[in-house]
């Protein structure tokens, strides 16, 4: 074959920045930067998987996030980046895998784009500081990136400069971002964002936080969320694990599922419920929750299985995939969903359906036996998923009819009138059903002549 010319397939820098930052939310970028710090710390702590009951001790690791409407900063003491890593790997677009296999163990970063994408999405003025090693061997440097200037660069050499810099207070990284993008400005300026981010970190790093990780958001410490399931009496949550072999690699899968709180008494769509928001399936990859409270086909709901219904509120399931080969995990690039084409994930889904089905059946039976159910539920206690005993299946009471038959009464009234009645009853925050119940009891006492 005679080659007559070469077709140019080089990407432009601007194109890269644009494409890279397209499909990710600002909060997920921040989590990506946290992942970076966590991975770095994890390497320093040895190669140990992170499960519900065991994992590396993160208690010496500190990640500080600070931001306002004009700037963002994340600082860690995770050991920093060696000059070699900075020169050859950390800033390449896409990971150069072969050379770096041992670095990947039990990490959450997999595509080699998280750091760059996160920084580009947040702002146009980027300053990265790193101190690696201790004492006389410590090496410190800075990587300043003026994005607007860099994007305009014409050469095919996409290098960033690495400058000399003073040492950080402890080995670690400090990333400062200024000249925020419009989206970052409006997101970080939102008065609810600090609590939103805190909640996300509390949830998505609940395992790391439980195992000691320290994270602060604008100087306030993030307390990890402790998921709890009912156990005792006739209730027992499922908690088991198995090992999946794929090629030469292995993935440890841990699964826990059960009953977090009672299902709602009404299915009124105008009564939004925080409990419903928290219910559903959670998926974690190497400890990081990548899908939370899922109620869609991405976990089990719908298709050949019942779709989500508010009646199922109270169900909680979590499945954790851990592997020293990150590629085997069902991660997506944004870490805000699961890769449903992943082999381990496809194999795990039937195992997720069994406890879900048990819960669906229970809530169906419960509808007609609320009093009996509440009595049994009151005998169980809420137990943290970090201290459960092993159980191969989820146990729930079988509900048989006791006592008189019940019925439910539903009606709609103007919201403002409901609030006014609640206020007149002494508590403006009474739930609608309680207002209705008291109105019923009041009328009943007035009008019904009970022998």
């Amino acid at each position, binding site marked *: 074959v005679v080659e007559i010319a070469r077709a140019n397939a080089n990407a432009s820098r601007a194109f890269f920045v644009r494409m890279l930052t397209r499909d990710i939310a600002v909060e997920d970028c921040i989590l990506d930067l946290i992942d970076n710090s966590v991975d770095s710390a994890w390497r320093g702590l040895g190669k140990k998987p992170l499960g519900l009951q065991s994992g590396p001790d993160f208690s010496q690791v500190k990640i500080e996030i600070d931001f306002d409407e004009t700037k963002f900063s994340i600082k860690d003491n995770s050991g920093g980046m060696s000059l070699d890593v900075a020169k050859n790997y950390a800033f390449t677009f896409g990971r150069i895998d072969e050379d770096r296999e041992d670095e990947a163990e039990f990490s959450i970063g997999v595509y080699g784009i998280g750091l760059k994408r996160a920084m580009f999405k947040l702002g146009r003025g980027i300053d990265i500081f790193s101190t690696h090693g201790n004492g006389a061997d410590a090496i410190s440097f800075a990587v300043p990136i003026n994005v607007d200037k860099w994007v305009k660069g014409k050469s095919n050499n996409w290098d960033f400069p690495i400058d000399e810099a003073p040492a950080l207070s402890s080995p670690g990284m400090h990333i400062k971002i200024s000249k925020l993008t*419009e989206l970052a400005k*409006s*997101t970080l*300026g*939102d*008065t*609810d964002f600090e*609590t*939103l981010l805190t*909640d996300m970190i509390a949830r998505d790093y609940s395992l790391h936080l439980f195992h000691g990780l320290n994270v602060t958001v604008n100087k306030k410490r993030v307390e990890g969320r402790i998921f709890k399931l009912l156990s005792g009496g006739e209730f027992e949550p499922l908690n088991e694990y198995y090992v999946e072999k794929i090629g030469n690699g292995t993935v440890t899968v841990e699964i826990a599922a059960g009953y977090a709180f009672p299902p709602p008494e009404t299915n009124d769509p105008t009564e939004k419920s*925080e409990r419903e928001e928290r219910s559903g399936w959670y998926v974690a990859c190497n400890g990081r929750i990548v899908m939370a409270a899922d109620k869609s086909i991405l976990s089990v709901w719908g298709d050949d299985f019942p779709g989500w219904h508010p009646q199922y509120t109270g169900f909680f399931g979590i499945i954790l995939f851990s592997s020293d080969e990150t590629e085997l995990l069902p991660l997506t690039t944004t870490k805000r969903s699961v890769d449903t084409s992943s082999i381990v994930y496809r194999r795990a889904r039937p195992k997720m359906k069994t406890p879900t089905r048990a819960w669906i059946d229970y809530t169906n039976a419960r509808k007609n036996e609320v009093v009996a159910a509440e009595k049994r539920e009151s005998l169980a206690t809420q137990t943290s998923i970090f201290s459960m005993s092993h159980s191969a299946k989820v146990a729930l009471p079988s509900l048989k009819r006791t006592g008189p038959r019940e019925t439910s009464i539903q009606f709609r009234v103007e*919201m*403002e009138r409901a*609030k006014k009645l609640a*206020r007149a009853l*002494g*508590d*403006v*925050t009474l739930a609608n059903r309680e207002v209705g119940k008291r109105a019923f009891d009041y009328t009943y006492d007035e009008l019904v002549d009970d022998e």
Partner: protein
Amino acid sequence: MIRPSFTAVNYSLRPSKTIQRSIVFDGLRRLQEILNWDRAAYLGFGSIWFTDFILAHRVLGLGRMISVEENLIGYRRACFNRPYKFVQVVRGRSSDVLPDIFAQARFRNTPTILWLDYDSEITEAIIEELRWAVVEAKDDSVLLVTIDATDKLYGINTKQRLARLAELFGDRATRSLQREEVKDPQLAETIGSLVMSMLKNVSRRTAKSNPIIPAFQIPYRDKAAMVTVGAVFPSPELQRKTLTKIQSPSWGGFVTEPIVAPHLTSKEVAVLQGALPSREELTRRSVQELGFDLEVDQLRAFQEHYRRYPTFAQVLS
């Protein structure tokens, strides 16, 4: 049946409300120096008194106005009491009729000064209406809302009030609230700030081309603790100028101490005004020298707002 407020309160006899209104119109007059209000329309709840409508015409020279009135008798009386020919009275609930009005061709590119001057506590429905109003605010528009911030309307104790505010504004916005902040008299300021944050967040989240600039937060009290919150939506080219004006020290739209104006006779007002302005604080002694007596906090309030203090007279015939 809910009694409309115009049957309960004579609008003209509330001195703190009058002072608050005067502060708002001072601010609007100053905004008018920047914003393009040639075709601007004033929309609000004129009731049967139309006090703010009269000011909108006198002070701002606006000539397009719509007043919304839900109650049938109130509507008929409002039609009867219209102060100017161009004031149109529309019957209905504001959240129902305003979207229709805004959708009309004649309002398509019109800056609006919309004052949702409620007498009630803030409700889910009002919050929804405010969200709508932020999204719909055209270039150079102003949005004002007044609500009742009386503590007992939000619960009989701090716990209930914290829960109720979380219901209204969301847990994220209210989580860090302290018990002190939901007690009278701080509650009015707390609710004012929650409303303002909510308005700002709506503007940010919807990526408005004319982002919101907070301009007014005025707690005041006649009988009930009230708060007025207001913001402006300048066109992109007027953003900077507007911001500079509102951030200047002479901008009076942000009032920290609730306005609690004493009820004074016109004779007392005249005598006190004759002693002002004064570099020193008026004392009880100085008032006694003028021939009568007042509590210290009443004096303080009068001295702070004396330029705006209204004089009322009852005509006995």
